């Protein structure tokens, strides 16, 4: 089992969700984060003073999957998250972490079937 963490553009969230549901990944957790990376931030101006804001709004997805779902999930995320065929700086990253166990709180089920 793997714990997949993906950082994507907020505007691509819907597309990623759609792409994931096509490969039958229906469960995930979403959070608001801010990213620092190659993508530049923006400038805000208040009463003539410029402020450089380098943190960029991103969305973080967390998806626990069984091993055979890892590749389709990754591909689906890439498909949904890339801006245009070329992709753009800031499109984000996917991190794959090992996952040892999963428990469904409602039933107490554990492991692969609880995912």
């Amino acid at each position: 089992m793997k714990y997949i963490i993906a950082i994507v553009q907020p505007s691509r969230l819907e597309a990623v969700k759609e792409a994931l549901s096509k490969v039958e990944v229906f469960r995930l957790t979403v959070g608001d984060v801010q990213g620092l990376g190659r993508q530049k931030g923006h400038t805000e101006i208040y009463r003539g003073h410029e402020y450089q804001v380098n943190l960029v709004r991103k969305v973080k997805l967390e998806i626990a999957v069984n091993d055979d779902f890892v590749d389709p999930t990754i591909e689906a995320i890439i498909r949904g998250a890339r801006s245009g065929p070329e992709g753009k700086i800031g499109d984000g990253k996917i991190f794959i972490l090992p996952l040892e166990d999963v428990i469904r709180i409602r039933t107490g089920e554990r492991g692969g079937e609880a995912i």
Partner: protein
Amino acid sequence: MRQSKIFRSPLLIGATFGGLLLAGSVWAQALPPVAPSAPVPEIKIDSGATAWILASSALVLFMTPGLALFYAGMVRTKNVLGTLMHSMFCMAIITVQWVIIGYSISFGDPTFGGLLGSMKYLFLNNVACDRAFPGYPIPHLLHMAYQMMFAIITPALISGAFAERIRFGAFVVFTLLWSTLVYDPLAHWVWGGGLLSMAEGSWLRRTVGVGALDFAGGTVVHISSGVSALVFCLMIGKRRGYPKEAMLPNSLAMTVVGAGILWFGWFGFNGGSSLNSDPLAVSAFVATHIAAAAAAFSWALVEWFHRGKASILGVVTGLVAGLVCITPAAGFVKPMPALVMGLAVSPVCYFMVAVIKTKLGYDDSLDAFGVHGVGGTLGALMTGIFCSEEICKLSGFATSAGLKQLQAQAVAVAVTIVYSAIVTVILVILVDKTIGIRLCADDELSGLDLSQHGETGYNP
């Protein structure tokens, strides 16, 4: 120990109030009987004038919550309630101060050669609701109420300068003292027949030949608060992290609401200052609106040229600057000069807050000085330039040509600046030595809301 610290502030506030009271009473006793001032013909109370000044009083009162929002939108989230408090609490304490002693200092008969009003109106004695305020068709008590709203908002203006770093108790004591020792005398000097007024035999009139024109508070309200703001922020020091850290406004939407309310209320502030519902009120109303609009427009233009973008914060700052600038002039100028004044004030204020402030490095956090001090000074001077014989006649002042008037304005401005600055220096030192004026580092870090009031602004 903890006890004593906590209670030091309310005790001091109590003491302040008590002291004011005592002083007042003693003084009331000690004064020689007031010489009857020249009898002003009593005018009959008019229901239309009363209606408009009642509405104006309500409008001016509404400006203080407006100012609370205007300022609170600009601070960081952790200080939003503390900043609201600075304005809102003025509504509470200044009202109490005003009805006890403030009105008397400001509008009692001139004593000590016009330095202070007599104690005739202590506790609103002799302020009747069914007799006209001499020379105007509104009840005397209504004049008291209308002027009270001005006394409330003026110290609230200062709070933009020391935002995000003052102890609440210190704020309260300072505000009470400042209002009594700076605002009330100034109001007396300019509007109460005192030193700087148009009254026969006032010091300024004897010196320059003509009194100062200040229709609705360019000197009394804006210069006094603006200059005190500057002094205060220099003395209390910068916010921790300023200017390196970005301290972004928590909600400009809130600031816009506040600005909208300010514009709305300012119609009462200036439009009501004729104390009548007459052509002069209309003229002041129109001048006010035009200057606000023009200044909002010119601020946006300056931003556009300087930074490539016009901003909403710019527009609302500009409109406030315009309102400030036209305040002393509203009842003396025609519409087109009002337009010019509005267009002129924004570039100057912008230059002040965007360039000079950075250069000099002081932390006037919400630009109380940059907007009110600078805009008020500009307005007071331009009043001397643009005042129109035709309009002035409506208010019963015969203006005697330009240059002398300008000179009178300049003297009034100078006196206001010097007096406000000196008293503020003394008060800040006094309050700091007794209860301490500045938040400790931890409290500043966690914010006014939690450290001073035990609340948080937003709970999602």
